[in-house]
């Protein structure tokens, strides 16, 4: 299973979601499908995508927040699982693409590469109730649909191949992404209040 295929499968569902991705390949693969104003690409500060997701989800109860994370990033902020478990944002889906590799920084094996470390088990042990561990595209699709239908925090750990896009680059400055993302949310809130 490749991450790009999973993201492509999710893409139609992300049109109305508040989406946060990690850096590098994951961000690029989403961007390549077509940027939307509701996508925020965290191109640095590894580990914090899910923390941003928590801050968004708790303060935007009418929205659904989807975080696209990776093994290298989440390993830099394992504490996020205990904080997520504690505050349990019911409107958040946390997808962790586990390719066992620090692909975007040279392809070194991450600590999950040997199969010894189990990120899904870490999430469960932190106290998150709904954790799916998947390794095929069909399983991923089912887990994502389940998460969308569930009114609770969902974590999906997806084992994917360590491959990424051929080219990197976005026609989007980082602060510009932040400003436009914030504006999209503000306009959604305005529309919600006047509806």
């Amino acid at each position, binding site marked *: 299973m490749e991450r790009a295929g999973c993201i492509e499968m999710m893409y139609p569902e992300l049109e109305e979601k508040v989406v946060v991705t990690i850096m590098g390949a994951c961000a690029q693969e989403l961007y390549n499908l077509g940027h939307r104003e509701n996508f925020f690409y965290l191109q640095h500060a590894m580990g914090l995508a899910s*923390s941003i997701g*928590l*801050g968004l989800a*708790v303060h935007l109860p009418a929205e659904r927040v989807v975080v696209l994370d990776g093994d290298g990033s989440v390993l830099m902020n394992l504490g996020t699982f205990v*904080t997520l478990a504690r505050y349990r944002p019911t409107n958040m889906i946390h997808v962790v693409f586990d390719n066992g590799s620090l692909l975007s920084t040279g392809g070194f094996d991450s600590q999950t590469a040997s199969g010894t470390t189990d990120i899904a088990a870490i999430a469960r042990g932190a106290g998150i109730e709904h954790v799916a561990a998947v390794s095929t595209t069909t399983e991923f699709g089912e887990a994502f649909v389940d998460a969308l239908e569930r009114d609770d925090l969902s974590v999906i750990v997806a084992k994917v191949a360590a491959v990424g896009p051929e080219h990197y680059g976005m026609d989007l400055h980082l602060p510009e992404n932040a400003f436009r993302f914030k504006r999209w949310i503000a306009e959604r809130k305005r529309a919600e209040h006047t509806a």
Partner: protein
Amino acid sequence: MTVSYENSKVIFDGIKAAGIKSLSALPETWLGLLLQRAEDDPDMELFQVAKEEEAIGIAAGAYFAGTPHVLLMQNHGFFAAINGIVSLAQLYHVPLCMLIAYRGHWGEPYPWHTRGGIVTEEVLRALAIPFEYARSPERVAKQIREAWVFSQSSLSPVALLLTRDLMEA
């Protein structure tokens, strides 16, 4: 020395008066009474984090969501959060209003706090984070409001250092 009950209340009231609806924090002796108030206040969203860098992400999420948010941390926790401050907040122009317990400085009896206290100001300067000292209960509410306003207008991290004079009774 004990933590000032009165001044903890003044600070919390100052946070509320500044229009803040959401707090992230890692519990710390000087911040304990403040956090208790936040916990007991149904109008305040409180996130207790496992490590302070998480709070930078949560604060960014709150900012994008349009909810006024303040971060409470010890200066050592500020050190632990620096990559998030630089590579999320400063890189993306996300404001942060940080109230930092300024441990390890004048009058500090505990050796383990001292090294962090000694370098705090220089680290703030190196990161170009504007900071002020909160020393008196008469002024602290105004300083919190001003820190908040400045963070929002500058789209920058701003720090208010909560000193021993203010926090201990």
